[in-house]
């Protein structure tokens, strides 16, 4: 089977609002950049399949799939939509190329979060209608529930969670794609409003608008299009039970199983040693720590200490979220996974500018579909075939 590489990336945003562009225009701009980056391919002829990722309720359309081809150059071409995070689209593209039937596949995901006037009501609508919705409240209490149990079980401190915010927002200052970079102190995070005990306001990512388009290619095509291919070494994904009543509230099991699937394929036996940096879903600060453990980057309950000791800082032993994460870039909803992939690609090509991780060869991208889901996905990427 052919190896699969990412040969082009295009990104617009991320910004708090984008009232000047429609979602179609946002997608067009990102697509133009990605095709140019992939050696100037013509999507009308050179792309075999287009995979877009979107959730109808976040778009405000029924059957949103139908609204995407024109702006990607995919009209009257072969297109399919994955109703989920962009990384599931990457996994789909990867498999399509692995079949041997397709050589070039485009993946797209975007966020027009600023167009959703009742975002929290949409999230609320994702809760079970019989058991959970009637209880009311802001659906982010689910993050508070999980954080509380996680701290209780692991002994991780609130300060250690707050350190994640300080680190990620600081990294984001160096990232032109980040909407919310800032130099803030631990005290500022700790003193920010306690919204869903023990979760505080500054520990919650703010949504942002943006679009990311990737071009993936088989080995034979990749080497013609670019001299900086980023190889997909393994992908994995997994979904836990949706039931709040019975799911695991301490460990992100969906992430552990997704990681095991990806690591097996990528032949990663010791993640901390084999991976040079990681982009981890951090829509809430504690999630970065919980996910680090589920990704087996460290022992259960030790991620907080490692973070506090600076081992995951930009100049640390294993930088986590050099992009600034979702806390710094802004929460791109279903584009979150591709925000992670984008940063890993830029780092592995040595194009991450002031936030470049030195000698990076293997990077990990991880995503989660956010509240109220328990779905995660993982991709291991490398600049070495």
């Amino acid at each position: 089977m052919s190896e699969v590489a990412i040969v082009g990336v295009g990104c617009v945003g991320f910004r708090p609002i984008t009232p000047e562009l429609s979602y179609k225009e946002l997608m067009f701009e990102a697509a133009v950049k990605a095709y140019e980056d992939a050696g100037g391919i013509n999507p009308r002829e050179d792309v075999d399949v287009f995979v877009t990722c979107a959730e109808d309720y976040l778009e405000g359309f029924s059957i949103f799939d139908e609204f995407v081809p024109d702006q990607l150059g995919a009209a009257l071409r072969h297109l399919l939509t994955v109703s989920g995070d962009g990384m599931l689209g990457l996994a789909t593209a990867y498999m399509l190329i692995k079949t041997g039937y397709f050589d070039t596949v485009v993946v797209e995901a975007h966020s027009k979060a600023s167009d959703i006037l009742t975002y929290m009501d949409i999230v609320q609508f994702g809760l079970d209608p019989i058991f959970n919705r009637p209880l009311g409240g802001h659906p982010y209490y689910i993050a508070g529930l999980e954080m509380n149990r996680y701290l209780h079980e692991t002994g991780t401190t609130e300060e250690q969670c707050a350190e994640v915010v300080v680190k990620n927002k600081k990294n984001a200052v160096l990232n032109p794609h980040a909407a919310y970079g800032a130099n803030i102190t631990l005290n500022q995070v700790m003193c920010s409003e306690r919204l869903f005990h023990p979760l505080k306001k500054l520990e919650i990512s703010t949504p942002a608008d943006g679009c990311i388009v990737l071009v993936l290619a088989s080995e034979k095509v990749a080497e013609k299009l670019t001299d900086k291919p980023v190889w997909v070494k393994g992908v994995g994904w997994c979904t836990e039970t949706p039931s709040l009543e019975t799911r695991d509230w301490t460990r992100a099991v969906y992430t552990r199983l997704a990681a095991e699937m990806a690591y097996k394929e990528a032949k990663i036996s010791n993640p901390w040693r084999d991976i040079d940096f990681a982009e981890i879903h951090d829509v809430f600060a504690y999630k970065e720590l919980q996910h680090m453990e589920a990704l087996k980057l460290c022992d259960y309950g030790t991620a907080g200490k490692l973070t506090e000791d600076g081992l995951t800082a930009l100049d640390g032993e294993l930088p986590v979220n050099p992009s600034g994460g979702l806390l710094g870039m802004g929460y791109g909803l279903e584009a979150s996974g591709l925000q992670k992939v984008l940063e890993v690609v830029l780092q592995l090509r040595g194009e991450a500018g002031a936030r470049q991780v030195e000698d990076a060869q293997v990077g990990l991208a991880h995503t989660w579909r956010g509240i109220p889901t328990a779905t995660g996905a993982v991709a291991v990427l490398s600049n070495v075939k």
Partner: protein
Amino acid sequence: MSVKIKHYPGEEVETKDFREGKVLFESFRPKAKYAWSAGIAISRFLEELKNGRIIATTCSKCGRIMVPPRIYCEKCFKPTDGWTYVKDTGVINTFSVSFIAADASRLKEPIVVAIINLDGASEGMGIVHRIEEYGDWREIKIGMRVKAVWKPPEERTGAITDIKYFKLVKE
């Protein structure tokens, strides 16, 4: 009921049983509100509707005059090159006559929706709108010429409904 089954097993339930609370149920009304950004192309299109004009964008590669306008040519995958007005007259490409509403209730007056190829736009491009002032719907034919009937300027809001409808025009 079929020939073989005269009576389905189970309890029969009527609307009043729900109203009277004899049937347990949960109801939830989603609050889903959006503000779709119109963007560069559609914002201009809507503004021009307010002025009583229909605007298109052009592609210098395939030469098409595209309406509704967009900032990219989906055929050539390149940015469009300019703006041009098209006429508010055209030809019925196809039409259908609806006798019932979305909730399946019977309409007093049928609604006629047509795909209209506008004069000045490229082949097969134009607008979707309602046809009124047609007399008997059986008189409407594919290929007939139509013209926009606009709201008075002070009533226009920059919406597709700034055109009230299209009416048939004699050749």
